[in-house]
Every structure is written in structure tokens, then in C-alpha cells.
């Protein structure tokens, strides 16, 4: 019980903060916070893949695209209400991830990064090619559809009236908390230990009877399902989807976000999501000259890898252990 008390209290604190925050945020800021939740969902999933089984994916934007287009097609072509498309997006993207995870078993480290990088680069072209399905370049527009909750008129939830921005905020953060709890439940106990064993030493894991194939593909499927949910929420938040909505930079930023977060706690992942959402805006505030923001991103990425090799969560942990006065050898994610 003691092991659970700490993180539970933290979780509760965060939940309270999220519920209460809109009172202090403007409408638009609530919308920005909703995007932070969307990225957090993707990062929670990618954390399972990279933090737990150590597989590198530079292509999770593609799984977000799968989820996003599932939502868009269901809403526009089949009139499905936006919230009901989210679980469908999770299943479709998860299946895609699992299917990719099967051949990906044979790739390791750098080669997996390379293969997933190539997928991320090719995604917009593939979306364009299948335009009968995806709408091609004209994309799909959700704004104004009755299936888009609160799109035109405020929605009533639990006795409160929410306009579009606030509805988005609560939708995205609720989903984020739900998927986090689901993930936490899944990673406790045997599954989590097996996944971590895969990361720490594949050979050792094999020799202790962990089925590598099963857990590695499981990790891919799960992380892709999360990315699909994130893509679905992203599409709902943008109220539109186009081939260029999921460029290779998105995949890069997702991996960066998960590394910055320290491959660990929810707070770290939220910090990583904040990083993804606001870095482009901060970079533009610093300089609007052409090319300058890219220079800033690149410099910051490199600097973060130097200064915070274990990310934000790692830094928080190191501060905590320093305060406690001894070196803690526990693996990340076991808070």
C-alpha cells in the first residue's frame, strides 16, 4: 500500500489541478492546455514502447494519422459522433501498430529508428495517394458538423454548460487520465516487469522465459493505440485533417517529448507534452527570421540531451534522491 500511496497522492494532486485550472485560464489557454493533453496521451503510449521495451520509433506520427483519419472518416462519411470514434481509432491504430510490430521484431536500435523515420517521411504521400478514402489534398473538414460536440452550440455536461474550448479541455484531459490509469494498471506486475526486462537485457529476458516477440509486439500495438487516440483527439481539436497534418516533424517531436520527459512519471510526460506544444511558439517569440526557430529547436534538443540525459523526471528524481542523501538504483517508472 505504501508503494502506491505516493504516486496516488501525486496523481490526485494533478487531477485536482486539471479540474480546477479552467477557472484561471482564458478560453484560448484552455484550448492550448487541451493540446498538451493530446500530446501527453501520445507520449504515454510512446513511453511504453521506448521507456519500457527500449524500441525507438521515429514514426509515431503515422499512427496518429491512422487514428485521426479513422475519426475523420467515421465522422464525415458515416455521421458518427466524435467521442464514439475515439475507441475505434484506438483499435484501428493499435492493430496497425501490432502488425508493424511483427516485422519490426527483426529490427533493433538504429535500424528500427531508420525504418520508422522512413515511415514518417512517407506518410503524407501515402495519405495523398489513397485520396478516395482520405479526401487527399482537400482533406476532411469537421467544423460545423453536428457530430462535432460543442462545435456550434455549447454542450451540457454534468450540469455545466461548456463552450467549444472548455469542452475540448475536459475531453482531452479526461481521456488523458483514463488512458494513463489504463496504462498504469497494465504495467504493474508481470506485464510491466516483462517489458522492462526486455529493455534492460533481451538475452537475459529470453533466458528467463519472457517471450520477447509477444511483449515487443504488444508494446508496439499498445503505443500505436495510444497514438491513435491522440490522433483522434488532435483531429477533433483541429476540426480538420489534411495529409500535411502529420509531417515528419511531429514524429520527431514525439520522440523528443518522451525523451525529455525522462521516460517515466506522468508529470514528466506532461512536461514533455508542454515542451512539444509551446516550443514552436517560444522559438518564434525569440526570433522570427527564416530558419531561426529550427536552429533553436535543434540547439535545445542537443542541449537537453547533454544537460538532462534522464529528462525532466530524471532530474526531479535526482533532486529527490540528493535531498535524501543516497543514490537510488531503482529503474525509472517505479515511483
Amino acid at each position, binding site marked *: 500500500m505504501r508503494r502506491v500511496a505516493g504516486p496516488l497522492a501525486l496523481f490526485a494532486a494533478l487531477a485536482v489541478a486539471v479540474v480546477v485550472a479552467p477557472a484561471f485560464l482564458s478560453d484560448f489557454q484552455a484550448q492550448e492546455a487541451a493540446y498538451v493533453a493530446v500530446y501527453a496521451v501520445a507520449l504515454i503510449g510512446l513511453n511504453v514502447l521506448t521507456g519500457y521495451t527500449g524500441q525507438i520509433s*521515429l514514426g509515431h506520427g503515422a499512427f496518429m494519422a491512422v487514428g485521426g483519419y479513422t475519426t475523420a472518416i467515421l465522422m464525415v462519411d458515416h455521421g458518427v459522433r466524435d467521442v464514439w470514434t475515439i475507441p475505434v481509432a484506438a483499435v484501428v491504430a493499435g492493430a496497425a501498430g501490432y502488425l508493424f510490430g511483427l516485422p519490426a521484431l527483426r529490427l533493433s536500435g538504429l535500424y528500427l529508428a*531508420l525504418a520508422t523515420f522512413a515511415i514518417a517521411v512517407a506518410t503524407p504521400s501515402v495519405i495523398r495517394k489513397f485520396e478516395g478514402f482520405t479526401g487527399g489534398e482537400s482533406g476532411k473538414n469537421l467544423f460545423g458538423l453536428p457530430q462535432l460536440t460543442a462545435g456550434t452550440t455549447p454542450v451540457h455536461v454534468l450540469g455545466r454548460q461548456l463552450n467549444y474550448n472548455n469542452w475540448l479541455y475536459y475531453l482531452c484531459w479526461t481521456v488523458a487520465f483514463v488512458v494513463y490509469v489504463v496504462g498504469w494498471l497494465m504495467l504493474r506486475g508481470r506485464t510491466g516487469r516483462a517489458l522492462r526486462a526486455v529493455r534492460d537485457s533481451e538475452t537475459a529476458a529470453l533466458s528467463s522465459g519472457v517471450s520477447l516477440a509477444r511483449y515487443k509486439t504488444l508494446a508496439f500495438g499498445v503505443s500505436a493505440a495510444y497514438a491513435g487516440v491522440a490522433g483522434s483527439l488532435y483531429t477533433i481539436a483541429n476540426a480538420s485533417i489534411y495529409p500535411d497534418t502529420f509531417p515528419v516533424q511531429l514524429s520527431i517531436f514525439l520522440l523528443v517529448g518522451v525523451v525529455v520527459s525522462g521516460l517515466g512519471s506522468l508529470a514528466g510526460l506532461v512536461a514533455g507534452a508542454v515542451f512539444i506544444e509551446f516550443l514552436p511558439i517560444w522559438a518564434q517569440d525569440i526570433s522570427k527570421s527564416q530558419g531561426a526557430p529550427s*536552429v533553436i529547436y535543434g540547439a*535545445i534538443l542537443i542541449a537537453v540531451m547533454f544537460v538532462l*540525459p534522464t529528462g525532466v523526471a530524471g532530474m526531479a528524481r535526482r533532486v529527490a534522491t540528493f535531498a535524501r542523501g543516497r543514490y537510488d538504483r531503482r529503474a525509472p517508472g517505479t515511483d
Partner: protein
Amino acid sequence: MGSPMLGTMGSPVSDFLQQVVSGLASGGIYASLALALVLIHRATGVINFAQGEMATFSTYLLWTLTANHGWPYWPAVGFTLAVSFVGGFGVYEMVIRPVEKGSVLRVVIVTIGLLLLFNGLTTWIWGGSQQSLHSPFPTRTIDVGGVAISVLDLGTIGVSIGVVIVLWLFFQFTKVGLAMRAAATNPAESRLVGVRVSSMLGLGWGLAAVLGAIAGALAAPSLASLDPNLMQATLIYAFAAAVLGGIDSPAGAVVGGLLLGVGLNLLGVYVGFIGADLRLPAALAVILVVLLVRPGGIFRRRVVSRV
């Protein structure tokens, strides 16, 4: 207004050969960048996602010397190659060496960071509009039986093959080359015999940067203009070429590049579904299939991992 020259309809054979020839030309560009990728991987075990952007940066340096500062072409080339060498070495020392002992993930993120950094730098310093770079070879075209072959394309392929030969001679017969090979395959034991491993690795990056600059100097005239996106698409094709040929084999990079160029052209022309718009995904498929079916590529080198 003069009268236009009527298009001459060639035979299906000469059309086919023309596609092959232009495929070889594109392939030569992929090969030259793939050589840089292979060199870095072979020397340091790193896949450098920033290779294309570093090459573009070097190409812009060459351009600005010749176009804006009036330097003659070949001295500018020499200067650019020298600066690229120092730059590559410097990038390794300052940015890669500190993180390469850590997880693979950190190294990947750092090279991605370099990709963004160099791409931004190029646009920031020189802007985004189209420029023109002087070609090292005459731009004449030779007509062989209805098939047009440009001297520049022949030169590009020739330079790539030449680089492979020079690299082979370097690695086989020079002390430095031998030291580099030792440092790459067995750093611990190389140190025991006095090889300065980290310098060798830095040397590898420096040489790769030189190869990248050469690739850019050939690509910009071949692709008819220079802009900051010069190598963005080519990088993926270069990865595909390197993977296809064997990621540790310079000869493989060239063979892979040429095969890829011709293959993509022929697939695009003769397989209607792929056409021109699935060219990039087709290259991606090559990467995936090769990595899954025969990970070492065509000229693979067996590596056994010890537990």
C-alpha cells in the same frame, strides 16, 4: 517565334534505355550521399540523420564563395572540402562523443537535433530562394542511339566509383585507414596497441562530411537548382541505397544507389499503380523489405554479437 522542334518518338527500347540512363543519373546522387552515411556508420556505428543537411550546408558554402565572393570554382571546392572536414570532426568532438557511450536513443535525438540545427542555419544565413551552382563537369549531352546521356551524370557516377576506390585503398593500405578500421571494430583492443580511438572516430566524421560536400556539389547542378531542401528527399533515397547495398559497404552504397535509381524509375513507368506519386513510399518499402529479409544488404558483413 521560331517553330518548335517536333518531338521525336523513339522506339520502346530507346525509351526504356532512357529511363535506365536517367535512373542511373539519379542513382549516382543517391550513391554519393549514401557513401557519407556508410562511412559514418562504419567508423562510428552511428546513423547520422543530419548527413543530408550537413551536406546542404557545405554546398551553400561552396555556392556563396563562387557566386557572392567571386572565388574561382576549384579553389572554392578545395576550401569547402577542408572546412567540411574540420566541421565534421568538430561536430563529432563537441556533440557526438559526449553522448555516444550512452543509449542509442540519445545519439538518435542528437543527430535529429543536428538535422534541425543545420537546416535552420542554412535558411537563416542564405535564405530560401532558388540558386544556381556551377557544375564541375561540362553540361553537354551525348546522344547514343536516341538516348541522351549527360556528361554531368557520367561524371557523378564516375566520382562515386572513384570515391569507393579511394576509400578502399585508404582503408586497406594506409596506416590511418587501418587504424580507423581497428577503432571501429574493436575500440578496446585498438587502444591497447596505441590507436587514438576517439581521434579516429572524429576523422571518420570529418571524412564523411567531405563526402557529403562532394555529394552536394554534384547534386545541386544535377537537380538544376540549389535551395535549403536540396537533400531532404535525397536523404531517404540515400538511406535506402545504403541499406540496400549494405550499411557498412561503400561499394554497396554505390551499387545500391544505382540499382535504386533505375529500379524506382522503371517501377514508376511500368507499374501504373506506383506511378510517380508513390516513389518515396517505394523507397521506404525497399528499406523495410531489405531490413527484414536480408538486413546486411547486398554486400553484407557478418557481425556476431557476443553475449
